[in-house]
């Protein structure tokens, strides 16, 4: 039997899929529908002193042929009365005792933190998430990413929360920092039971080039917003992995940022996430996406021999290293499968103008280009632009050179193979 159940810093859920703190987790009716659809947990839309939002508040990054690959918002925390939220949280927890209900919080003073934490704990919720991440609006008021960008403040507020809370505390980190590690460590010093990341990335999603106003437009003005959705996954993966491999860190991680399907979730888990949170993909397509996420993860675990989630959390971390540890003598070259090639020559123009000018027309006149393997540096560009799956592969070249990393070279004088394409 494959066991999908997850435990993030003592917060347990039947599967690792949680709604991120955002519109899909705005109300009891929504969260309960999500649980019925299969979600294992939900981080309630951030509570604090209710705010007033603008209209409109979302923008999207459309790319030719694909809509909304990236998404941005300028909405703030909850705009609903606190008592209503707390009543619904309690009701949800009663009806769904096995699911994880986490209350996301953002207030200012120590007294406010004490008060709101007590009320949150009283709902029967499974955990708290401190929103130190929101990069717009709230930070101007000294909250959100204004806290998350200052390790000292982060640590201090975290320690208050841990003091007042009888349930696990996760700290939600902002990606709007140069290096995530000190911020994760600050949360740890504050006593957090785990961290969640990433929140949204400061961004301007686009500009209305006829009105000269950035988007989304609020009357005649706009402001910077938070970027999220599938496009941010690479940034999120890096930040999750950076903390996961940090020896001093060691806290559980709830991974967030661009998760759209089971494969994305598997990637986050392999890089150290015990749970994954989703906002944008649910906003775009609905709670129903979780069915595929559960099935896909289950199938993946079965086919890779993982009986429990723990067995796969962080499985790719040992293979995430420093540049200086990569083998410089490892060599690959591009191979084009003549049977599969359709003759679009996209690889040729990419290599010509963007790489090392080593893909040429077939001298014999066929439509299949040829790779000058003596010049090919194995950069991967041609494979990336090739529209035919499996047509271009990067083949390992047994060049006879013993492995040597940059660190080996500098520290032990190990020999490096001659450079290619550097003339």
């Amino acid at each position, binding site marked *: 039997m494959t066991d999908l159940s997850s435990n993030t810093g003592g917060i347990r859920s039947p599967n690792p899929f949680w709604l991120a703190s955002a519109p899909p987790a705005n109300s009891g009716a929504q969260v309960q529908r999500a649980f019925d659809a299969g979600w294992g947990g939900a981080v309630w839309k951030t509570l604090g002193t209710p705010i007033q939002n603008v209209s409109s508040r979302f923008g999207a990054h459309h790319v030719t042929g694909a809509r909304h690959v990236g998404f941005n918002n300028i909405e703030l925390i909850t705009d609903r009365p606190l008592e209503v939220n707390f009543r619904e949280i309690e009701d949800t927890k009663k009806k769904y005792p096995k699911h994880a209900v986490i209350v996301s919080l953002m207030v200012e003073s120590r007294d406010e933190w004490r008060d709101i934490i007590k009320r949150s704990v009283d709902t029967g919720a499974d955990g708290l998430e401190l929103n130190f991440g929101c990069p717009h609006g709230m930070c101007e008021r000294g909250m959100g990413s204004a806290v998350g960008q200052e390790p000292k403040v982060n640590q201090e507020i975290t320690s208050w929360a841990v003091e007042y809370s009888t349930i696990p505390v996760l700290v939600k980190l902002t990606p709007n920092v140069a290096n995530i590690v000190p911020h994760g460590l600050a949360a740890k010093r504050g006593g957090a039971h785990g961290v969640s990341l990433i929140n949204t990335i400061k961004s301007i999603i686009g500009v209305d080039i006829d009105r000269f106003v950035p988007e989304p437009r609020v009357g005649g003005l706009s402001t910077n917003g938070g970027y999220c959705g599938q496009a941010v996954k690479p940034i999120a993966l890096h930040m999750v992995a950076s903390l996961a491999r940090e020896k001093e860190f060691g806290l559980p991680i709830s991974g967030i940022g661009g998760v759209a*399907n*089971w*494969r994305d979730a598997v990637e986050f888990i392999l890089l150290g996430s015990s749970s994954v949170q989703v906002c944008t993909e649910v906003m775009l*397509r*609905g709670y*129903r*996406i979780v*069915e*595929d996420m559960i*099935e*896909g993860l289950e*199938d993946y675990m079965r086919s890779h021999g993982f009986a429990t989630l723990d067995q796969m959390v962080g499985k790719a971390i040992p293979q995430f290293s420093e540049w200086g540890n990569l083998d410089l003598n490892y060599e690959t070259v591009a191979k084009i499968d003549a049977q599969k090639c359709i003759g679009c020559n996209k690889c040729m123009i990419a290599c010509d103008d963007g790489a090392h000018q080593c893909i040429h027309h077939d001298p014999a006149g066929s439509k299949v280009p040829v790779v000058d393997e003596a010049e090919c540096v194995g950069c991967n560009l041609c494979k990336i632009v090739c529209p*035919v*799956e499996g047509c271009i592969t990067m083949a390992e070249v047994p060049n006879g050179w013993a492995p040597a990393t940059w660190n080996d070279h500098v520290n032990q004088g190990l020999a490096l193979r001659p450079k290619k394409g550097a003339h």
Partner: protein
Amino acid sequence: MATTPIDPDRSETVFEDYKGSYSRDQALAEASRCLYCFDPPCVKACPTEIDIPQFIRKIATENVRGSARTIFASNILGMSCARVCPVEKLCAGACVFNDLHQAPIQIGKLQRYATDTAYDAGWRFFDAGPDTGRSVALVGGGPASLACAHELRRHGHRCTVFEQRAVAGGLNVTGVAPYKMKADRGADEVAWVLGIGGIEVRTGVTVGVDVTLAELATDHDAVFLGIGLGADSALGVPGESLPGVQGAVAFLEAMKLSKVSVAGVRRAVVVGGGNTAVDAVRALRGLGVADVTMLYRGDEAAMSGYAHEWAAAKVAGARAEWRGVATGFDAGADGRVAAVRCQRLDAQRKPVDGDVFTLAAELVLVAIGQAKLDALVAPLGLDTKGGRIVTDADGATSRPGVFAGGDARNGGKEVVNAAAEGKRAATAIDAFLRGSAR
């Protein structure tokens, strides 16, 4: 026990798939195009209400097993439906891309990709429920009974299917056009459905002859009638019994299960304008008959055969003679049919005085409908209307414990209707069995 094997050396094997299968890349590309609509028209257009956006998204994420599960959960005959459904009239015809004047999603081909992958991999998704000790007799081994039996097994009721032919599968094996699905693939589906266990199939048993319906009703706790329609209807005109004049469904069955010869046939006429007529026309062209004419009493716009099917028949080189009826057949010197005598009709389908003509033909297939089998159910005293067995929405007939679905109930629709009706009836049978005292 279940079925005799399909003859590998049969006439239909000359046909190629009209809509081929997708490679993985093709399936991914097409699946990624789907908008993942919510509560969409495609699902409403599917009689079995498969969650189409969900199964397509699962192909796009390469969760093909989950995709197949989604399909089979709604329609256990999803593999054959993927091939034989007139998707242009059903799901794909309702796809929102039509409103954008863009090509609709190829739902049938994607469904074929997922279900074929499941068959190839041997994935099974459903287990029989705990034995209830109840048993159901299912008359006819076609799509309606198979869908019904599978669902009954999930509820834990034992099933016995009585099929008069040597093979089970109904028209899905003996009737559907070979360029959509060949008989062996239909038989694969029968085996797949029976894989749930606990369904006994008795082939070669004609209910009403070898065993009576009344006996079945006594021996079992409930009866499901999935008997479909009967033999080809006849025109009732002189010369119809000449060699070379044949019912179209009978001819197609012969082609699908054994060998038919069109040697010496240069010209053929198919009488009728429904889908069976169009299938027969395309089959004859595919078998190599040079000149195939469809003789139909109405205009092109009035034919009940689907426009997309007829368009494909025209591409295959078929011709039509509109507003004509066959009034008799003439024999040639060899005693076989040589010509069809025809009468022209006007727009009101009244004979046009003096407008008669002749079509030369060495083979004539009559495709004007199939007989109804109401005589079989007469001893049970079931309500019928126009030859159809009358039931409520769930398939319950006028006699408690007797249910019906498929062509026998709906008068002749599609495989997917039979699948939907069979499954729905199973739910009603289950409720009946649980409600009735032993």
